[in-house]
């Protein structure tokens, strides 16, 4: 089977498992939406403040809960499944790409639902371009967080304190993604140029993809 055939098959199975388990959409997402609703309720009738903080709250909750999604997905890769894939001759880089594809789809869907909830409960004053920048940044952030979670999962495979270590890896490395995503929308609204922030997101995504693919095989052998 070709590299891309393996990657797409792994992504397909990951999404089937997620659809049946519902970890992201039935467990993480409701909590994220509740957290999103609590803030306007606490601020009461001060509508202008709620509108002003809308995108900031969205990015904060999106990253916070998005990391949960990324880490849950990376932890779902069981040793038995990894062994089986190794014995079927699956290319470790194809496995990385497959997991990033499924994670990105999941993460982007999660962030888009959260963005819809933000639009509904906060009614932010965003221009059409602002909404476009938000959608593009959300997509790039989703891909980046998924790559980060997958890399962290690979690095910490087989370690006892895997979850704690993965969090320590993901949190600081997510900073360029968070800055790029949040500043792109702000820059558009301030009319100061969105391109540098979008480039930061694209560069971060590409760098993580290269790191993940390059490290996939050495990391797999190192955990043997």
């Amino acid at each position: 089977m070709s590299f891309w055939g393996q990657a797409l098959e792994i992504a397909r199975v990951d999404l089937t498992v997620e659809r049946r388990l519902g970890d992201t959409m039935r467990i993480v997402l409701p909590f994220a939406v509740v957290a999103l609703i609590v803030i306007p309720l606490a601020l009461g009738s001060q509508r202008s403040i709620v509108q002003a903080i809308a995108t900031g709250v969205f990015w904060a909750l999106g990253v916070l809960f998005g990391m949960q999604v990324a880490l849950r997905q990376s932890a779902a890769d069981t040793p038995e499944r990894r062994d089986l894939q190794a014995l079927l001759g699956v290319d470790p880089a194809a496995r990385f790409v497959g997991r990033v594809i499924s994670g990105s789809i999941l993460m982007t869907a999660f962030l888009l639902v959260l963005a819809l909830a933000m639009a509904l409960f906060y009614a932010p004053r965003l221009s059409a371009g602002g909404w476009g920048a938000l959608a593009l940044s959300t997509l790039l952030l989703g891909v980046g967080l998924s790559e980060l979670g997958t890399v962290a999962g690979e690095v910490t495979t087989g370690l006892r304190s895997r979850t704690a270590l993965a969090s320590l890896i993901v949190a600081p490395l997510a900073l360029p993604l968070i800055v790029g995503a949040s500043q792109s929308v702000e820059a558009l609204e301030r009319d100061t140029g969105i391109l540098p922030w979008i480039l930061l997101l694209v560069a971060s995504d590409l760098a993580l993809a290269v790191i993940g693919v390059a490290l996939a095989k050495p990391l797999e052998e190192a955990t043997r």
Partner: protein
Amino acid sequence: MEAIVDLIGVGVSLGGRPVLRDIDLSLASGEVLGVVGPNGSGKTTLIRTLATLTSIDVGHGSVLGAPLAGNQLREVRRRIGLIGHQPSLIQELTLNENLAHVAKLSGLDPGRALRALEIVGLEDAADRRADACSFGMRRRAEIARLLLTKPDLLLLDEASSGLDDAANGLIRALMGSTTGRGGGVVMVSHDAAMITELTETVLSIESGRLGAAR
């Protein structure tokens, strides 16, 4: 005749603790080898080393012609079949989906999954999720997986534990078909009577050292 497995002076440590020591082992084409030993003696580590899933620290050797320390292991792994302690099925997929997934990743026709399930008597449970199946059914599904992929080196780690006579018959058939194709079989268990009954050559393992069976 090609040596399926050839280990010389192999040692493996896990977490700094030596688990296998000075292992010399060879398995010829068509041979069935049994290794018997108590819990914690190194049986599973030996099987994982033969499956190239655990790397060696000392010694050298080859599996299916590929050096254990070399770069050709990924290609060789396709020719190794393993039944371990825990069935390696994806719990949220049906048995048929699990086998079709394996078939696709192996470059085989996924339509053959159902036929393999029929052979092991699981055609009626093909659409049942793995987490809704009994241990014995999941074991049968693993046997079906190996009937599908036809490995040249079959590794069985306590594979017969908890199985009824019919399922044990399927394992015997799987072993027979592997050796019939010129492959080799290594089976480990704590059950000396079962190992003696199923295998031609029996070795014992204790504290990570292989010896002649008592």
